[in-house]
Every structure is written in C-alpha cells, then in structure tokens.
C-alpha cells in the first residue's frame, strides 16, 4: 500500500515536497496539512510520500543491481571453479570481513555525498551476499545428474547456467532479496539521518527524522512520523518476503 501511495504521490497531495513556504512553518496537523508542516513550511504528509518514493526507488534499484551482479558472479565462480572462483571468493571474503555499515559509511565519505554514492556504496557491499548464496547452491546442484546430462549433450556453459542452473538455485536469492530490501531501506534512512544521504531539499525519511529531532519536544510528529513509516514498511516487506518464501517452497 505504501508503494501504491508513493507512486500516486502527485495525485494524493497538492503540495510540492520541496518548495519553501516560510510563512507556514511548523503548523500543527490540520485538514489542510494532515501531518502539519516542517520548519520551512513544507507539508509533512507530502514529504513523507515523496520520501517513500526516494527511499524505495533507491532500495529496489540498488538491491536489483546487487542481485543481478552478485548472481552473475556467483554462477561464474560456482560453475567454473578454479581461478575465477578463487578471485571472486577472496573479493567476497574481503568485503564480508568489514562490518556492513562501516564499509558503506566509509565509501560514502570517500565518494562524497549524493545519490550516486549511495547506489555505489550499497551495490559494492551488497552483491557479495548473492554471490555467496548462489555459488553455494551451484556447487551442490552442478553435481546433480541433469546438469551432468546437459554437459554430456554438449551444451555450452552459458546455456547450462541460464537454462538449467539458475531456475534451480535462484529461489534462495529471491527470498533473501526481500529481507535485503528492508535492510537496504534502513541503510538509506540511516545515511540520511547521519546527513550522508540524499542531499536536501529532496525529501527522505532519514533526513526528515534528523531535521525533526530538534523539534521533538515541541513538534514530535516531525521526527516520529517518518520513523513510524520506516517501521511499517519494514514489517510489511518482511511479511511479504515470508509469503514469497512460503509460496516458492510449496512449489
């Protein structure tokens, strides 16, 4: 539902998420402004919706890219083994050796703030999980008879991987990607809260919480509402992920 609201944001609200309206600063919630306005007179409900767009878009695209890249590397490493496997797995080990957040924050610092840096930092650290999962699955699957049969028939490796291996090993990665999206949203919100996220004035839940923190004693909704939104979307996507896992397992 949140995704729907986020996509429909321009239809639901008539305010702009970025245009300042200084004379309307810090208004209490009312019929005109469902959740009030922030210190620069921007409608909080509007910023929440547009913020969902920003956070979800980055999370989905970054996870998708990690998924694709990680899976590709995992297939190559798992199927061919040898030096390709050694190189890929040492890279995975190096990245896994660092705490995830430390690495992401360090990368964002190095690359400078901005949306591009967030994408790069998340993808650069996130692909390893998929590689790890896929490689492990492939190592066990490739010894199964139907794969051996495909090889014996003389199919080229690319065809074997795409037609025979991936459909059989991808389930785990898809299930994992659901919880990964939740985690990635949390990462983006954390970066925003720390002031390393999407640059203002673009609405983003983390920076909305950070900005609202100074008014917590007088206008609690500014910081609390985006926090509640993160909780709702986190629980929602987790349940969705569980559902998908159940469905795939049944099949």
């Amino acid at each position, binding site marked *: 539902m949140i995704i729907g609201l986020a996509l429909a944001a321009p239809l639901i609200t008539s305010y702009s998420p970025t*245009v*300042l309206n*200084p004379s309307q*600063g*810090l208004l209490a919630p009312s019929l005109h402004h469902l959740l009030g306005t922030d*210190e*620069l*007179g921007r409608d909080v409900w509007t910023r929440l919706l547009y913020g969902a767009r920003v956070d979800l878009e980055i999370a989905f695209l970054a996870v998708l890219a990690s998924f694709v890249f990680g899976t590709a590397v995992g297939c190559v490493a798992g199927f061919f083994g040898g030096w390709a496997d050694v190189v890929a797995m040492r890279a995975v080990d190096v990245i896994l050796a660092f705490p995830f957040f430390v690495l992401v924050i360090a990368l964002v*610092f190095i690359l*400078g*703030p*901005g949306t591009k840096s967030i994408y790069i930092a998340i993808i650069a650290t996130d692909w390893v999980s998929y590689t790890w999962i896929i490689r492990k699955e492939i190592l066990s699957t490739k010894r199964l008879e139907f794969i051996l049969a495909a090889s014996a028939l003389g199919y080229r490796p690319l065809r074997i991987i795409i037609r025979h291996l991936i459909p059989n090993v991808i389930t785990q990665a898809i299930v994992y990607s659901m919880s990964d999206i939740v985690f990635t949203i949390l990462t983006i919100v954390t970066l925003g809260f*720390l*002031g*390393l996220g999407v*640059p*203002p*004035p673009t609405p983003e839940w983390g920076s909305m919480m*950070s*900005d609202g*923190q*100074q*008014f*917590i*004693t*007088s*206008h609690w909704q500014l910081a609390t509402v985006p926090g509640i939104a993160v909780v709702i979307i986190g629980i929602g996507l987790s349940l969705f992920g569980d559902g998908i896992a159940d469905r795939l397992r049944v099949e």
Partner: protein
Amino acid sequence: MTDRVNAYQSEVLNSVSRRSFLKTMAAGGAVVGGATAFGSLLVDPFAGASAARRGGDLTFARVADPQTIDPSAAIDTESIWTCLSLYECLYNVTADGHRTTPWLAVSYDISQDQRAWTFHLRPGVKFSDGRPLDSTDVRFTLERALKGPNSYILSAVNAIDTPNASTVVIHTAHPWGPLLGDMSMYSNAILPNNLRGATAAQFFEHPIGTGPFILESWTKGQKLQMKRNPHYWQNGKPYLDSVTLLTVPDDNTRLLQLRGGQADIMEGAPYSSIAALKSTPGIDVNLFKSSAVSFIAMNEKKAHFADVHVRRAISYAIDRATIIKDVLFGHGTPAASFFSPAWPFYQANTPKLWYDPAAAKHQMAMSKYPKGFKTTFALASGDNLNGTIAQIVQSNLSVIGIDVAIQSYDPSTLATLQSSAHYDMSPGLMTLDIGDPDENVPAAVAGAYGGINSAYTSYNSAKVLQLTHQSELTVATAARAKMYARIQTIVAQDCPFAMLYYSPYPYAQQSKVHGFKVPPTGAYHLEDVWLS
C-alpha cells in the same frame, strides 16, 4: 578569532588554523557578564549583587567537553570558558564587549614613543595555593603564551621587563593599538611562574590560578568539577561552593535535564524550544547579546565568485528575515557589517546589501554570468541549522538563476575543503574573545596576512590590508574607530561574505540561579552566580 561553527550534537566543523578560525562552538555560548562589586578598588560597572547568598552547588549542562585546561593551548570555546574560571587575565572585557576593564592589573601607563606599556598589578591577589601574584608570573605566562597556538596575539611583543614585584613592562616592536585587548585574551591568562616547578602535564592535573574556582576532578567526556578558591581576591566571592560542568551534547537531553532539575543552567537552548521554556514555571530563558556573526563564505578562487557582481547579487537575493524566523525563531538580527554590534568599533551605518530581488537581478545582469550558473553549498553532515539555511539560500538563489546543490561532508573533510579553497559556498561563524576587533580582522579580511586567506575566501583588498596594519599601529581610539568604520564599509561593498545574522547566546536556567550573565565574548563570570 573564532569562527565557531555550530557543534550541535552533530557538530563541529573545526579547523584550527593560525587564528583558530573555525573554532568549534556548540550552538550557543553562555555567558556571564557582569562582575559585580569586586574588590574595594573598583567601581562596579554592573548590577550589584545585593542579596547574594553564599553556598550551594551549581550544575551546568554544556554542549561539549573542554579539550584542554591549559589556557595557552585552548582554541575551542568550552576550553576557553572553563579556563577563565580557573585563571584570569590582566584586563577583562566589559559587559557590553566594547571596552577593556582592569582585572589582575589596576592600571597601565604608556611611554611617549608608545612602545612600552607599564602595567601595575592589583595588590592582594593570591593564587589558589595562597602565594601572591607578582610580576614574574606575568612575564612567565606571556613568554609561555608566545610559544603556544595563540601566539599571533602577541606578535608585536619584543620583551617583557619586571622592574619590581608589582610592575610589568611590555615592550613592543612598534606602537600596537590592540595591546590592552590582547591582554584580555584567554591565552594570556596568568599562570604561576615556572608552573611551580612542575611539568605542564603535572601542573594541569592540579592547576593553580587566581580564578574564582579550583579544578577538583575531570572525567573527560562527562563532567568537570570545580570548587571554591578560598584565596580569591574579590571580597566575598565566589558565592558558590562548587560548580559541576556536565558535557551533554544532545539538545533534547540537556533540555530534559534542565526541566527535571538535574541541571541548573543549560547552554545552547534550542531556539525552537525558547517559547515553550519561557512559559515553563521555575525556568528562565536568557538570550545574551553575543559577538557571534554568521555569514556565508564565497570562495573567490572559483571564477563565479571572483566576480563582485555575483557576490553582491547573492547577498541581495538572500531573504534574511525568513532565515531569522525559521532558523532562529526570530531571535536574531540581520547582519550587514562583519563586525557584530557587540564588537568594539562596530559601524551601524555599514552599507546593507539585504533582500532586494530587483537589485539582485540587476547585479546578476552586470556580472559575467547574466544567465546564472550551477554551484554548490558545502556544510557539515548533521548540521541541521546550516542545513535549513542552505535550503532557504538554495530557494532564494534559484530566483536569480543560480542553481545550488547542497553537499554535506564530515566535519574534518569540510575543514580541509575550506582551508584548501576547494568549495564554492560554505557557512561560517565568527566570535570575538577579547576587547579588540584585531583578534578577528586580519584573519577575516586581510588575506594572507591573517594566515587563513580572509576566512578561506581568498578575498584580497590592498586598502583593507593597509587599514588593518594602520589600525594595529595606532593607539588612539578615535583614529582606530575611523579606520575600522572604513574597513567595514569596503568589505560590505566587496562582499566576500554574504552576511546573514547576529545571534544571541541562548541560555536557560532554573529561577533559583541568580547573577548568571554572559558578556559578548561568551566567557561568563561564575564568581557572580548565587543560588536562592
């Protein structure tokens, strides 16, 4: 000069350079201004503390921990303000910040050639170990300060003589107008001769000074406790038995501590909470006039900002009224001069390049970039105050075709970008610690002479540089006032900074706290504080 860039919970931009320009300061300083009736020799220039009650313990929640309690090494405001409760200077700043007043010295004479200043020490002053203050202590202190990070303040000093125990003669290479102000500089606070034979590390474990309080314990990052100096020279002071300085970086936590009674005074009261605090029974809010000046520095190493018309257009385009309303909740005044009204020699009729969209467009049309350009605004990550300002400025400048991208950096990266001139626009804050603007003027506007290329803007004006030198070499106050007025006018027209506002020091306290006043320098006199 201190450019203190807010250290909010987030804080701190901090680059320490020759003039300790970007000094960290938590959002607010505290301050106490007035000495109340001190010693019998002095006329009390401030309110008298008639019904002052002796005794009690004060808990004071501050934004940051002091970095050091060695006055010669201090560069951050919390260290400076802590040091000035432990040690004192020969001269001090008056409550309005405009003049100096005798403190450990009672008077001075200046020689005919204006190169020898003779200071007469206050009789009866004792250090906290009971031994009397004499001229060798002063000579030792100044010679030690000459080796410290704030030695620039003594750059004109040639030699220090001690003809007798109560007289110190300071010889300067040339006539030096700011000398009295320099004597009020925290880095020149008087320490005992030769640190009583101890090494600096040993001495500052249990420091000895003439200040109203003695260090009792310091748990770094948490709290610093001070107790009454029994040998203090001002009759009957300090009133308090002890003072505990708590380090509480988070604004909301400090606020809760004040409301819950765990803190008696809170530094850096958030502007957004002031209205609510004022209506809270038992809590008083004080907005003390400060020396703080907020501005946006524009880097003239970048072609866009080398054009004076662009800089003026930006100044004209910024809606200060909105910034003051949204960021300071109305608790500030728009700035034109880079001197605050609380600095000596402030010039009220400095040209005002204030919000005027027509003038802004006119200046853009005259510039080399009539169609506008893209640029960036660099600030520290987590700096909510400047983040809000940046968004208002972004919106204001879009009207004249300037497309601003806001970029946040961790504080040390930002400091590097500023000092290496790799930024376009960035917020700045300056405060004055002494009773003379010469602490700031060279660093702020005199180019390479001040050590930090005009507050990292690379602004250069031959006339301003010449007037800066001249004002230093002139002792007569009236003549200096004219030179500083001229400097303020030229700088306002050249517009190296888009001046924003003058803000106060926002403090909140329990109503039982009395006598807590903060002068524009921010260095409160805790000896005047008492509890009812």
